[in-house]
């Protein structure tokens, strides 16, 4: 078991691209954990990942990997799976292996080819001939073959069939099960995170709304739905991500703010899924999000921020 240092610690990252501002992006991922990084397109997920990897420079903040400040030496211990592979499209998978063999210090050729077999990838195919799902599998095979301690993945499961996604989820669970490894991955498919993630970090418009355990997040919110006309203004003010269609609505409410007596008869409530939470908070703009329904925990844990939205 690795010492109690965090596999990844991000503190106060900031970056501006034109109109887009990222500020005070902070979270911490411990060994043995899988952290899902969620948020809508353009929220800053890929930029955050690129900053962690040193591909993009933050304008402020710090990144610690394995308890050490960011440096080219420590970044080599990360397994990376990006939206599309960085390998030349003209390379056959055997050439990818040949390239990796010379650039990773702890490269395991046998493990790589075993993964290719497991994934049903033909080693004589060229990278450019692979489908999106296959190219993700190729990157995962490479990432798991050089003794990486931390796996960072950007949307690894989008475009992949449910069975393969399930397999990838199991693989990640196996990867962290010894407590010496950790996984950080961004995704739109929150159902994957329901199954595999231990922690969630939620980013919206370049700011972290929540970072902490998945279990804590899921117990904080309820989904309410019913006839829109019957909802009082008082109740409406406590709802997040109000969505109305054909006279009916659905929205999120903090469990502690939910007063069943206030709920009209036509309304029902049920525990919110991760998808409900992400969709509702993404829908809600900063102005319309009621402070009482803020995702930020009132009692901040080391891995939980408390920005008042």
């Amino acid at each position: 078991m690795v010492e109690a240092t965090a596999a990844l610690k991000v503190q106060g990252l900031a970056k501006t691209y034109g109109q887009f501002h990222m500020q005070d992006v902070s979270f911490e991922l411990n060994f043995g954990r899988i952290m899902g990084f969620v948020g809508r397109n353009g929220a800053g997920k890929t930029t955050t990942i690129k900053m962690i990897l040193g591909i993009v420079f933050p304008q402020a903040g710090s990144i610690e990997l394995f308890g050490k400040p960011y440096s080219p030496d420590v970044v080599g211990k990360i397994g990376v799976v990006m939206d599309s592979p960085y390998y030349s499209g003209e390379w056959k998978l055997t050439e990818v292996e040949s390239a990796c063999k010379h650039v990773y210090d702890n490269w395991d050729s046998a493990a790589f080819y075993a993964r290719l077999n497991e994934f049903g990838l033909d080693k004589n195919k060229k990278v450019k001939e692979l489908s999106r799902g296959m190219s993700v599998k190729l990157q995962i095979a490479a990432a798991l073959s050089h003794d990486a301690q931390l796996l960072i993945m950007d949307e690894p499961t989008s475009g992949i069939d449910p069975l393969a996604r399930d397999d990838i989820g199991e693989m990640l669970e196996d990867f962290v099960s010894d407590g010496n490894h950790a996984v950080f991955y961004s995704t739109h498919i929150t159902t994957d995170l329901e199954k595999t993630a231990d922690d969630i970090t939620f980013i919206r418009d370049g700011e972290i709304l929540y970072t902490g355990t998945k279990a804590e997040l899921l117990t904080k919110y309820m989904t309410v739905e019913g006839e829109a006309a019957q909802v009082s203004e008082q109740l409406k003010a406590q709802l997040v991500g109000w969505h109305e269609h054909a006279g009916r609505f659905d929205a999120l409410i903090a469990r502690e703010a939910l007063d069943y007596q206030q709920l009209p008869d036509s309304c029902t409530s049920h525990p919110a899924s991760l998808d409900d939470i992400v969709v509702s908070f993404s829908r809600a703009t900063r102005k319309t999000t009621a402070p009482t329904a803020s995702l930020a925990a009132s009692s901040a844990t080391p891995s939980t921020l408390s920005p008042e939205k």
Partner: protein
Amino acid sequence: MKKILWLDWMVNKMLLSWKYIILWLVLGAFIAVSAGSLAGAYMGVLVGTSAATMPFLYGEKTNMNAWYVTLGISRKDVVRGRYISSLLFAVVTTLVGLVYGYLISVGADLLGFGNPELKMIDAKVSFFCALTAILFAILDFSITLPIYFGMGYQKGQYAAIIPYIIICIAGGVGMGFVGDKGLAVLGYIVTHLWWIMLVVSIIFVALYYVSYLVSAKLFARKEF
């Protein structure tokens, strides 16, 4: 450093596919027979300088530069590695071109259609040809690599032509300035050829180093 040299080689060697090899061999043979064995060196250096652009081309297509960073290769090493690998590749292809040109000339001579006058293999002249070809590569890399590192391949491939246009114009103006003294200047160059080559070589090596420093500076803050 080894990592970047290997990865650049993996990209450069794509120019060594059968399709390209046959193309180079046929073209090289044609040039060697028609223009002499020593032209093989210039053919070779053209292959070398073309290969140098490959890591930029593919680096941009698949964002390989980002991969280099995630491998723990510093941006400085990426630049350093590319300057070394480009020059190395150009030297090797020049020498291969020189030898190939000679073999083709000998073969053509044996078959009866070669020009014996063009099949010269004087060591001094061969060395001169190889040196000028390599100096051309150094000049080319000194100009184009900072452009590619600074602007990327897509934009840089057009911008890289501009310095050559300027050199051509300056050459034309220079020739006009020299005017009637042209033959005298040429005569001076021929009589002091090796000294001039030595001075030019030193200047070009210095230029290459300055070019490297500029590229390293341009690439240091590059995001992918």
